[in-house]
Protein backbone atom coordinates (compact mmCIF):
# COMPACT_ATOMS: atom_id res chain seq x y z
CA UNK A 1 0.00 0.00 0.00
CA UNK A 2 1.02 3.63 -0.41
CA UNK A 3 2.09 5.05 2.98
CA UNK A 4 1.88 8.64 1.72
CA UNK A 5 -1.79 8.32 0.72
CA UNK A 6 -2.59 6.59 4.02
CA UNK A 7 -0.83 9.38 5.89
CA UNK A 8 -2.87 12.02 3.99
CA UNK A 9 -6.18 10.27 4.76
CA UNK A 10 -5.23 9.85 8.44
CA UNK A 11 -4.10 13.49 8.64
CA UNK A 12 -7.40 14.68 7.13
CA UNK A 13 -9.26 12.52 9.65
CA UNK A 14 -7.25 13.96 12.56
CA UNK A 15 -7.88 17.52 11.32
CA UNK A 16 -11.64 16.81 11.21
CA UNK A 17 -11.45 15.26 14.69
CA UNK A 18 -9.68 18.34 16.09
CA UNK A 19 -12.30 20.61 14.49
CA UNK A 20 -15.17 18.59 15.99
CA UNK A 21 -13.47 18.44 19.42
CA UNK A 22 -12.91 22.21 19.40
CA UNK A 23 -16.55 22.82 18.51
CA UNK A 24 -17.52 20.71 21.53
CA UNK A 25 -16.11 23.52 23.74
CA UNK A 26 -14.11 23.37 26.99
CA UNK A 27 -16.02 22.15 30.06
CA UNK A 28 -16.44 25.07 32.49
CA UNK A 29 -17.58 23.24 35.61
CA UNK A 30 -17.75 19.71 37.03
CA UNK A 31 -21.42 19.30 36.10
CA UNK A 32 -20.52 19.90 32.44
CA UNK A 33 -17.37 17.75 32.68
CA UNK A 34 -19.17 14.76 34.22
CA UNK A 35 -22.75 14.70 32.87
CA UNK A 36 -22.72 17.47 30.20
CA UNK A 37 -25.38 19.32 32.27
CA UNK A 38 -27.78 16.42 31.65
CA UNK A 39 -28.76 18.01 28.33
CA UNK A 40 -27.77 15.36 25.79
CA UNK A 41 -30.39 14.36 23.19
CA UNK A 42 -31.38 10.86 22.08
CA UNK A 43 -29.33 10.64 18.86
CA UNK A 44 -26.07 11.68 20.56
CA UNK A 45 -26.58 9.40 23.60
CA UNK A 46 -27.37 6.47 21.29
CA UNK A 47 -24.37 7.27 19.07
CA UNK A 48 -22.07 7.45 22.07
CA UNK A 49 -23.32 4.16 23.59
CA UNK A 50 -22.96 2.36 20.24
CA UNK A 51 -19.56 3.95 19.50
CA UNK A 52 -18.34 2.87 22.95
CA UNK A 53 -19.39 -0.77 22.68
CA UNK A 54 -18.31 -1.17 19.05
CA UNK A 55 -14.65 -1.65 19.87
CA UNK A 56 -12.05 -3.86 18.14
CA UNK A 57 -13.74 -7.02 19.47
CA UNK A 58 -17.17 -6.12 18.01
CA UNK A 59 -15.69 -5.18 14.62
CA UNK A 60 -12.43 -6.96 13.71
CA UNK A 61 -13.24 -9.78 16.15
CA UNK A 62 -16.76 -10.41 14.79
CA UNK A 63 -15.57 -10.43 11.18
CA UNK A 64 -13.03 -13.10 12.18
CA UNK A 65 -15.73 -15.09 14.00
CA UNK A 66 -18.03 -14.87 10.96
CA UNK A 67 -15.16 -16.16 8.83
CA UNK A 68 -14.79 -19.29 10.96
CA UNK A 69 -18.27 -19.94 12.36
CA UNK A 70 -20.77 -18.07 10.19
CA UNK A 71 -23.79 -16.59 11.97
CA UNK A 72 -23.15 -18.54 15.21
CA UNK A 73 -21.73 -15.40 16.82
CA UNK A 74 -24.73 -13.38 15.68
CA UNK A 75 -26.83 -15.69 17.88
CA UNK A 76 -24.37 -15.45 20.81
CA UNK A 77 -24.14 -11.67 20.34
CA UNK A 78 -27.92 -11.33 20.56
CA UNK A 79 -27.42 -11.74 24.34
CA UNK A 80 -25.71 -8.35 24.20
CA UNK A 81 -28.77 -6.81 22.54
CA UNK A 82 -31.02 -8.37 25.20
CA UNK A 83 -28.76 -6.86 27.89
CA UNK A 84 -29.00 -3.36 26.42
CA UNK A 85 -32.77 -3.58 26.01
CA UNK A 86 -33.20 -4.84 29.60
CA UNK A 87 -30.99 -2.03 30.91
CA UNK A 88 -33.10 0.44 28.92
CA UNK A 89 -36.37 -0.96 30.25
CA UNK A 90 -35.44 -1.71 33.86
CA UNK A 91 -32.29 0.09 35.01
CA UNK A 92 -31.40 3.25 33.07
CA UNK A 93 -34.64 5.18 33.84
CA UNK A 94 -34.37 4.31 37.55
CA UNK A 95 -30.75 5.46 37.59
CA UNK A 96 -31.62 8.71 35.79
CA UNK A 97 -34.43 9.40 38.29
CA UNK A 98 -32.04 9.38 41.28
CA UNK A 99 -31.35 12.97 42.34
CA UNK A 100 -27.78 14.34 42.43
CA UNK A 101 -26.17 11.29 40.82
CA UNK A 102 -23.05 11.75 38.67
CA UNK A 103 -21.89 8.11 38.64
CA UNK A 104 -23.03 4.58 39.42
CA UNK A 105 -21.00 4.94 42.63
CA UNK A 106 -23.29 7.82 43.66
CA UNK A 107 -26.22 5.41 43.32
CA UNK A 108 -24.33 2.92 45.54
CA UNK A 109 -23.77 5.75 48.06
CA UNK A 110 -27.49 6.56 48.14
CA UNK A 111 -28.51 2.92 48.45
CA UNK A 112 -25.74 1.34 50.56
CA UNK A 113 -23.80 4.20 52.19
CA UNK A 114 -20.45 5.98 51.79
CA UNK A 115 -18.25 2.91 52.30
CA UNK A 116 -19.99 1.10 49.42
CA UNK A 117 -19.62 4.19 47.21
CA UNK A 118 -15.84 4.28 47.73
CA UNK A 119 -15.50 0.51 47.06
CA UNK A 120 -17.65 0.80 43.91
CA UNK A 121 -15.50 3.79 42.89
CA UNK A 122 -12.25 1.85 43.29
CA UNK A 123 -13.61 -1.11 41.28
CA UNK A 124 -14.95 1.24 38.56
CA UNK A 125 -11.64 3.08 38.37
CA UNK A 126 -9.72 -0.20 38.01
CA UNK A 127 -12.12 -1.42 35.30
CA UNK A 128 -11.92 1.87 33.34
CA UNK A 129 -8.11 1.73 33.48
CA UNK A 130 -8.09 -1.94 32.42
CA UNK A 131 -10.47 -1.36 29.49
CA UNK A 132 -8.44 1.72 28.49
CA UNK A 133 -5.23 -0.35 28.41
CA UNK A 134 -6.93 -2.86 26.08
CA UNK A 135 -8.17 -0.07 23.77
CA UNK A 136 -4.76 1.64 23.67
CA UNK A 137 -3.18 -1.71 22.81
CA UNK A 138 -5.70 -2.22 19.96
CA UNK A 139 -5.07 1.27 18.57
CA UNK A 140 -1.32 0.76 18.87
CA UNK A 141 -1.54 -2.49 16.88
CA UNK A 142 -3.43 -0.74 14.03
CA UNK A 143 -0.88 2.12 13.83
CA UNK A 144 2.14 -0.19 14.13
CA UNK A 145 0.84 -2.60 11.44
CA UNK A 146 0.04 0.22 9.03
CA UNK A 147 2.91 2.67 9.40
CA UNK A 148 5.59 0.44 10.90
CA UNK A 149 5.92 2.75 13.91
CA UNK A 150 7.55 1.41 17.08
CA UNK A 151 4.94 0.06 19.52
CA UNK A 152 5.77 2.62 22.23
CA UNK A 153 5.20 5.49 19.77
CA UNK A 154 1.86 4.09 18.51
CA UNK A 155 0.66 3.54 22.08
CA UNK A 156 1.74 7.06 23.11
CA UNK A 157 0.04 8.68 20.09
CA UNK A 158 -3.29 6.96 20.81
CA UNK A 159 -3.15 7.85 24.53
CA UNK A 160 -2.09 11.49 24.01
CA UNK A 161 -4.61 12.29 21.24
CA UNK A 162 -7.56 10.85 23.17
CA UNK A 163 -6.55 12.26 26.56
CA UNK A 164 -6.07 15.76 25.11
CA UNK A 165 -9.66 16.39 24.01
CA UNK A 166 -11.22 14.37 26.86
CA UNK A 167 -9.25 16.32 29.48
CA UNK A 168 -10.56 19.69 28.37
CA UNK A 169 -13.99 18.90 26.97
CA UNK A 170 -15.14 16.22 29.43
CA UNK A 171 -18.23 14.14 28.64
CA UNK A 172 -19.55 16.62 26.08
CA UNK A 173 -16.38 16.39 23.98
CA UNK A 174 -16.39 12.61 24.39
CA UNK A 175 -20.01 12.32 23.20
CA UNK A 176 -19.59 14.76 20.29
CA UNK A 177 -16.43 13.04 19.03
CA UNK A 178 -18.11 9.65 19.57
CA UNK A 179 -20.89 10.79 17.24
CA UNK A 180 -18.26 11.77 14.65
CA UNK A 181 -16.54 8.39 14.98
CA UNK A 182 -19.84 6.50 14.91
CA UNK A 183 -21.01 8.23 11.74
CA UNK A 184 -17.68 7.35 10.08
CA UNK A 185 -17.59 3.65 10.84
CA UNK A 186 -21.35 3.04 10.63
CA UNK A 187 -21.26 4.29 7.04
CA UNK A 188 -17.85 2.98 5.90
CA UNK A 189 -18.00 -0.64 7.09
CA UNK A 190 -21.46 -1.60 5.71
CA UNK A 191 -20.51 0.08 2.42
CA UNK A 192 -17.44 -2.21 2.36
CA UNK A 193 -19.78 -5.20 2.79
CA UNK A 194 -22.16 -4.09 0.04
CA UNK A 195 -19.31 -3.29 -2.39
CA UNK A 196 -17.72 -6.66 -1.75
CA UNK A 197 -21.02 -8.53 -2.08
CA UNK A 198 -22.17 -6.97 -5.34
CA UNK A 199 -18.91 -6.22 -7.16
CA UNK A 200 -16.23 -8.63 -5.95
CA UNK A 201 -17.72 -11.73 -4.33
CA UNK A 202 -17.30 -14.77 -6.57
CA UNK A 203 -20.82 -15.90 -7.47
CA UNK A 204 -22.38 -12.72 -6.07
CA UNK A 205 -25.17 -12.59 -3.47
CA UNK A 206 -26.39 -16.13 -4.35
CA UNK A 207 -23.01 -17.65 -3.43
CA UNK A 208 -23.05 -15.72 -0.16
CA UNK A 209 -26.48 -17.16 0.70
CA UNK A 210 -25.17 -20.66 0.03
CA UNK A 211 -21.98 -20.14 2.07
CA UNK A 212 -23.75 -18.76 5.18
CA UNK A 213 -25.44 -22.01 6.41
CA UNK A 214 -22.30 -24.08 5.70
CA UNK A 215 -20.13 -21.74 7.77
CA UNK A 216 -22.68 -21.62 10.60
CA UNK A 217 -22.96 -25.42 10.78
CA UNK A 218 -19.15 -25.66 10.88
CA UNK A 219 -19.13 -23.19 13.77
CA UNK A 220 -21.79 -25.14 15.70
CA UNK A 221 -19.85 -28.40 15.28
CA UNK A 222 -16.50 -26.93 16.34
CA UNK A 223 -17.62 -24.87 19.38
CA UNK A 224 -18.21 -26.76 22.67
CA UNK A 225 -21.56 -26.10 24.36
CA UNK A 226 -19.92 -24.87 27.60
CA UNK A 227 -18.01 -22.26 25.62
CA UNK A 228 -21.24 -21.02 24.02
CA UNK A 229 -22.85 -20.78 27.49
CA UNK A 230 -19.84 -18.90 28.92
CA UNK A 231 -19.71 -16.49 25.98
CA UNK A 232 -23.46 -15.85 26.16
CA UNK A 233 -23.10 -15.05 29.90
CA UNK A 234 -20.17 -12.71 29.14
CA UNK A 235 -22.19 -10.91 26.43
CA UNK A 236 -25.26 -10.73 28.66
CA UNK A 237 -23.51 -9.36 31.74
CA UNK A 238 -19.90 -8.35 31.03
CA UNK A 239 -20.43 -4.75 29.93
CA UNK A 240 -23.71 -4.09 31.73
CA UNK A 241 -23.67 -0.59 33.22
CA UNK A 242 -19.88 -0.18 33.02
CA UNK A 243 -19.01 3.41 34.06
CA UNK A 244 -19.23 5.02 30.57
CA UNK A 245 -22.77 3.66 30.06
CA UNK A 246 -23.88 4.61 33.56
CA UNK A 247 -22.59 8.16 32.96
CA UNK A 248 -24.49 8.35 29.66
CA UNK A 249 -27.69 7.13 31.35
CA UNK A 250 -27.25 9.95 33.88
CA UNK A 251 -26.36 12.56 31.23
CA UNK A 252 -29.53 12.00 29.18
CA UNK A 253 -31.94 14.91 28.85
CA UNK A 254 -34.81 12.93 30.44
CA UNK A 255 -35.53 9.44 31.82
CA UNK A 256 -37.34 8.65 28.57
CA UNK A 257 -34.27 9.58 26.50
CA UNK A 258 -32.15 7.43 28.80
CA UNK A 259 -34.50 4.44 28.34
CA UNK A 260 -34.91 4.79 24.57
CA UNK A 261 -31.22 5.30 23.84
CA UNK A 262 -30.33 1.96 25.46
CA UNK A 263 -33.19 0.16 23.69
CA UNK A 264 -32.16 1.55 20.27
CA UNK A 265 -28.51 0.74 21.04
CA UNK A 266 -29.58 -2.87 21.77
CA UNK A 267 -31.45 -3.16 18.46
CA UNK A 268 -28.50 -1.57 16.64
CA UNK A 269 -26.10 -4.15 18.09
CA UNK A 270 -28.01 -6.97 16.33
CA UNK A 271 -27.82 -5.12 13.00
CA UNK A 272 -24.12 -4.42 13.53
CA UNK A 273 -23.29 -8.04 14.41
CA UNK A 274 -25.22 -9.20 11.31
CA UNK A 275 -23.17 -6.89 9.08
CA UNK A 276 -19.84 -7.88 10.68
CA UNK A 277 -20.46 -11.66 10.62
CA UNK A 278 -21.78 -11.43 7.02
CA UNK A 279 -18.56 -9.63 6.05
CA UNK A 280 -16.62 -12.53 7.61
CA UNK A 281 -18.70 -15.09 5.66
CA UNK A 282 -17.96 -13.28 2.40
CA UNK A 283 -14.27 -13.30 3.23
CA UNK A 284 -14.33 -17.14 3.15
CA UNK A 285 -14.25 -17.12 -0.66
CA UNK A 286 -11.78 -14.25 -0.96
CA UNK A 287 -9.00 -14.54 1.65
CA UNK A 288 -6.98 -17.74 2.38
CA UNK A 289 -8.62 -20.09 4.87
CA UNK A 290 -5.57 -20.07 7.19
CA UNK A 291 -5.78 -16.29 7.75
CA UNK A 292 -5.70 -15.49 11.51
CA UNK A 293 -9.07 -14.27 12.83
CA UNK A 294 -7.90 -10.77 13.72
CA UNK A 295 -6.49 -10.20 10.21
CA UNK A 296 -9.53 -11.30 8.16
CA UNK A 297 -11.05 -7.81 7.83
CA UNK A 298 -7.75 -6.16 6.94
CA UNK A 299 -6.93 -8.88 4.39
CA UNK A 300 -10.42 -8.67 2.86
CA UNK A 301 -10.22 -4.92 2.38
CA UNK A 302 -6.62 -5.11 1.16
CA UNK A 303 -7.63 -7.56 -1.57
CA UNK A 304 -10.85 -5.78 -2.60
CA UNK A 305 -10.37 -2.07 -2.16
CA UNK A 306 -8.12 0.40 -3.91
CA UNK A 307 -5.45 2.08 -1.75
CA UNK A 308 -7.80 4.94 -0.86
CA UNK A 309 -10.42 2.47 0.36
CA UNK A 310 -7.88 0.71 2.54
CA UNK A 311 -6.85 4.04 4.07
CA UNK A 312 -10.49 4.87 4.78
CA UNK A 313 -10.92 1.54 6.55
CA UNK A 314 -7.85 2.35 8.60
CA UNK A 315 -9.53 5.59 9.65
CA UNK A 316 -12.69 3.65 10.56
CA UNK A 317 -10.63 1.29 12.75
CA UNK A 318 -8.87 4.17 14.52
CA UNK A 319 -12.31 5.76 15.07
CA UNK A 320 -13.57 2.55 16.64
CA UNK A 321 -10.68 2.53 19.11
CA UNK A 322 -10.70 6.24 20.01
CA UNK A 323 -14.48 6.37 20.53
CA UNK A 324 -14.29 3.59 23.11
CA UNK A 325 -11.17 5.01 24.77
CA UNK A 326 -12.39 8.60 25.27
CA UNK A 327 -15.57 7.44 27.04
CA UNK A 328 -13.54 5.18 29.35
CA UNK A 329 -11.05 7.93 30.24
CA UNK A 330 -13.80 10.43 31.03
CA UNK A 331 -15.80 7.89 33.05
CA UNK A 332 -12.69 6.91 35.04
CA UNK A 333 -11.88 10.56 35.83
CA UNK A 334 -15.45 11.32 36.93
CA UNK A 335 -15.54 8.15 39.08
CA UNK A 336 -12.22 9.08 40.75
CA UNK A 337 -13.42 12.60 41.58
CA UNK A 338 -16.98 11.79 42.58
CA UNK A 339 -16.68 8.39 44.28
CA UNK A 340 -13.19 8.40 45.76
CA UNK A 341 -12.07 12.00 46.41
CA UNK A 342 -15.38 13.72 47.18
CA UNK A 343 -16.55 11.27 49.92
CA UNK A 344 -13.22 11.80 51.71
CA UNK A 345 -12.77 15.55 51.36
CA UNK A 346 -14.93 18.56 50.49
CA UNK A 347 -14.19 19.96 47.02
CA UNK A 348 -15.27 23.21 45.42
CA UNK A 349 -16.67 22.88 41.90
CA UNK A 350 -13.54 24.45 40.42
CA UNK A 351 -11.26 22.05 42.33
CA UNK A 352 -13.43 19.06 41.33
CA UNK A 353 -13.07 20.05 37.66
CA UNK A 354 -9.30 20.34 38.09
CA UNK A 355 -9.10 16.94 39.84
CA UNK A 356 -11.20 15.39 37.04
CA UNK A 357 -8.92 16.80 34.34
CA UNK A 358 -5.74 15.65 36.07
CA UNK A 359 -7.28 12.22 36.70
CA UNK A 360 -7.96 11.87 32.93
CA UNK A 361 -4.25 12.38 32.21
CA UNK A 362 -3.14 10.03 35.01
CA UNK A 363 -5.55 7.23 33.92
CA UNK A 364 -4.39 7.54 30.28
CA UNK A 365 -0.75 7.37 31.41
CA UNK A 366 -1.29 4.37 33.72
CA UNK A 367 -3.28 2.55 31.01
CA UNK A 368 -0.54 3.19 28.43
CA UNK A 369 2.11 1.90 30.85
CA UNK A 370 -0.01 -1.25 31.50
CA UNK A 371 -0.33 -2.11 27.78
CA UNK A 372 2.50 -4.71 27.82
CA UNK A 373 0.62 -6.60 30.58
CA UNK A 374 -2.52 -7.02 28.42
CA UNK A 375 -2.50 -10.70 27.27
CA UNK A 376 -4.51 -10.04 24.06
CA UNK A 377 -7.39 -7.79 23.05
CA UNK A 378 -10.09 -10.43 23.61
CA UNK A 379 -8.29 -11.85 26.69
CA UNK A 380 -8.04 -8.37 28.28
CA UNK A 381 -11.71 -7.66 27.63
CA UNK A 382 -12.77 -11.01 29.14
CA UNK A 383 -10.81 -10.28 32.35
CA UNK A 384 -12.53 -6.89 32.69
CA UNK A 385 -15.96 -8.40 31.95
CA UNK A 386 -15.52 -11.13 34.58
CA UNK A 387 -14.42 -8.74 37.35
CA UNK A 388 -17.06 -6.12 36.56
CA UNK A 389 -20.03 -8.48 36.24
CA UNK A 390 -19.34 -10.30 39.48
CA UNK A 391 -18.17 -7.32 41.55
CA UNK A 392 -20.80 -4.72 40.67
CA UNK A 393 -23.87 -6.07 38.89
CA UNK A 394 -25.68 -8.03 41.65
CA UNK A 395 -25.43 -5.14 44.12
CA UNK A 396 -26.24 -2.48 41.48
CA UNK A 397 -29.30 -4.10 39.94
CA UNK A 398 -30.83 -5.47 43.16
CA UNK A 399 -30.07 -2.20 44.96
CA UNK A 400 -31.92 -0.12 42.37
CA UNK A 401 -35.04 -2.27 42.80
CA UNK A 402 -35.10 -2.87 46.60
CA UNK A 403 -36.63 -0.15 48.76
CA UNK A 404 -34.27 -0.67 51.70
CA UNK A 405 -31.16 -2.58 50.58
CA UNK A 406 -28.72 -3.54 53.37
CA UNK A 407 -25.26 -1.89 53.25
CA UNK A 408 -23.65 -5.18 54.37
CA UNK A 409 -25.14 -6.96 51.32
CA UNK A 410 -23.65 -4.40 48.91
CA UNK A 411 -20.19 -4.39 50.49
CA UNK A 412 -20.07 -8.20 50.85
CA UNK A 413 -21.22 -8.80 47.28
CA UNK A 414 -18.62 -6.40 45.83
CA UNK A 415 -15.81 -7.80 47.99
CA UNK A 416 -16.55 -11.49 47.38
CA UNK A 417 -17.32 -10.95 43.68
CA UNK A 418 -14.00 -9.14 43.07
CA UNK A 419 -11.99 -11.67 45.07
CA UNK A 420 -13.49 -14.78 43.42
CA UNK A 421 -13.18 -13.25 39.95
CA UNK A 422 -9.49 -12.41 40.46
CA UNK A 423 -8.72 -15.86 41.93
CA UNK A 424 -10.61 -17.61 39.10
CA UNK A 425 -8.71 -15.63 36.45
CA UNK A 426 -5.35 -16.14 38.20
CA UNK A 427 -5.84 -19.92 38.29
CA UNK A 428 -6.56 -20.14 34.54
CA UNK A 429 -3.51 -21.63 32.84
CA UNK A 430 -1.71 -19.76 30.07
CA UNK A 431 -2.49 -22.21 27.23
CA UNK A 432 -6.11 -21.72 26.12
CA UNK A 433 -6.30 -18.65 28.38
CA UNK A 434 -9.09 -17.03 26.36
CA UNK A 435 -11.21 -20.17 26.12
CA UNK A 436 -10.99 -20.89 29.85
CA UNK A 437 -11.53 -17.26 30.92
CA UNK A 438 -14.91 -17.31 29.15
CA UNK A 439 -16.38 -19.62 31.80
CA UNK A 440 -14.85 -17.98 34.93
CA UNK A 441 -17.67 -15.42 34.94
CA UNK A 442 -20.19 -18.10 36.01
CA UNK A 443 -18.65 -19.14 39.42
CA UNK A 444 -17.61 -15.54 40.21
CA UNK A 445 -21.11 -14.23 39.59
CA UNK A 446 -22.64 -17.08 41.61
CA UNK A 447 -20.37 -16.30 44.58
CA UNK A 448 -21.27 -12.58 44.44
CA UNK A 449 -25.00 -13.37 44.39
CA UNK A 450 -24.64 -15.78 47.34
CA UNK A 451 -22.68 -13.15 49.29
CA UNK A 452 -25.40 -10.59 48.57
CA UNK A 453 -28.13 -12.90 49.87
CA UNK A 454 -26.12 -13.63 53.06
CA UNK A 455 -25.50 -9.90 53.61
CA UNK A 456 -29.16 -9.12 53.03
CA UNK A 457 -30.22 -11.83 55.51
CA UNK A 458 -27.93 -10.69 58.34
CA UNK A 459 -27.33 -6.98 57.59
CA UNK A 460 -29.12 -3.99 59.09
CA UNK A 461 -31.01 -1.32 57.13
CA UNK A 462 -28.96 1.83 56.42
CA UNK A 463 -29.28 4.45 59.18
CA UNK A 464 -31.81 7.13 58.21
CA UNK A 465 -33.47 4.99 55.53
Amino acid at each position, binding site marked *: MNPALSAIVVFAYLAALVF*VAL*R*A*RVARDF*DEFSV*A*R*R*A*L*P*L*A*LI*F*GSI*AATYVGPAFSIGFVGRGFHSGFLFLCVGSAYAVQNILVGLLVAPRL*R*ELKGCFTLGDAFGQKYGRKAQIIAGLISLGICTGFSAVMIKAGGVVLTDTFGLPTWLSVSLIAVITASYTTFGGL*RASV*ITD*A*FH*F*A*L*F*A*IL*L*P*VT*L*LCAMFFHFKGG*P*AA*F*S*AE*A*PIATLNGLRSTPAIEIVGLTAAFLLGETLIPPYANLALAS*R*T*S*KVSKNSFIIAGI*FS*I*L*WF*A*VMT*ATGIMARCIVPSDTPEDHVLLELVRSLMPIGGYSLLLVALISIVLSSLDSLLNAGAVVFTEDIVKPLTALSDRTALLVGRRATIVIATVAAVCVPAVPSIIGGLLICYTVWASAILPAAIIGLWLKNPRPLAGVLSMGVGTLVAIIAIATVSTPDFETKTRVTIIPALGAALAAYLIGHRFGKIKAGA
Partner: protein
Amino acid sequence: MQSIILILVLIAALLVVASGVWVAAALLRAIARPKTDPDSNSRTERRMDGRQQPDDSPHPRNLHE
Protein backbone atom coordinates in the same frame (compact mmCIF):
# COMPACT_ATOMS: atom_id res chain seq x y z
CA MET B 1 -34.43 -19.60 3.00
CA GLN B 2 -31.16 -18.50 1.41
CA SER B 3 -32.71 -15.46 -0.22
CA ILE B 4 -34.30 -14.52 3.13
CA ILE B 5 -30.82 -14.51 4.74
CA LEU B 6 -29.56 -12.27 1.96
CA ILE B 7 -32.47 -9.85 2.25
CA LEU B 8 -32.08 -9.65 6.05
CA VAL B 9 -28.35 -8.91 5.74
CA LEU B 10 -29.01 -6.19 3.16
CA ILE B 11 -31.69 -4.61 5.36
CA ALA B 12 -29.30 -4.73 8.34
CA ALA B 13 -26.53 -3.02 6.32
CA LEU B 14 -28.88 -0.29 5.13
CA LEU B 15 -30.22 0.32 8.64
CA VAL B 16 -26.66 0.61 10.01
CA VAL B 17 -25.88 3.21 7.33
CA ALA B 18 -29.13 5.02 8.16
CA SER B 19 -28.14 5.09 11.87
CA GLY B 20 -24.80 6.63 10.88
CA VAL B 21 -26.58 9.32 8.85
CA TRP B 22 -29.02 10.04 11.72
CA VAL B 23 -26.20 10.49 14.26
CA ALA B 24 -24.17 12.56 11.75
CA ALA B 25 -27.15 14.90 11.33
CA ALA B 26 -27.47 15.27 15.12
CA LEU B 27 -23.73 15.95 15.34
CA LEU B 28 -23.93 18.67 12.69
CA ARG B 29 -26.83 20.33 14.52
CA ALA B 30 -24.89 20.17 17.80
CA ILE B 31 -21.68 21.72 16.47
CA ALA B 32 -23.24 24.18 14.03
CA ARG B 33 -24.92 26.32 16.68
CA PRO B 34 -23.51 29.84 17.02
CA LYS B 35 -21.29 30.43 20.04
CA THR B 36 -23.23 32.70 22.38
CA ASP B 37 -23.36 33.08 26.12
CA PRO B 38 -25.20 30.22 27.84
CA ASP B 39 -28.29 32.15 28.86
CA SER B 40 -28.98 33.70 25.48
CA ASN B 41 -28.26 30.32 23.92
CA SER B 42 -30.89 28.77 26.16
CA ARG B 43 -33.45 31.44 25.20
CA THR B 44 -32.66 31.05 21.50
CA GLU B 45 -33.05 27.29 21.76
CA ARG B 46 -36.43 27.56 23.45
CA ARG B 47 -37.62 29.96 20.73
CA MET B 48 -36.38 27.64 17.99
CA ASP B 49 -37.86 24.52 19.54
CA GLY B 50 -41.12 26.21 20.44
CA ARG B 51 -41.53 23.96 23.48
CA GLN B 52 -40.52 23.81 27.12
CA GLN B 53 -37.79 21.51 28.40
CA PRO B 54 -38.93 18.55 30.56
CA ASP B 55 -38.97 18.81 34.35
CA ASP B 56 -36.11 16.41 35.03
CA SER B 57 -33.68 18.31 32.85
CA PRO B 58 -32.03 20.70 35.30
CA HIS B 59 -29.86 22.53 32.77
CA PRO B 60 -31.67 22.58 29.44
CA ARG B 61 -29.15 24.08 27.06
CA ASN B 62 -26.22 23.50 24.75
CA LEU B 63 -27.47 20.82 22.40
CA HIS B 64 -30.29 20.57 19.93
CA GLU B 65 -32.19 17.35 19.57
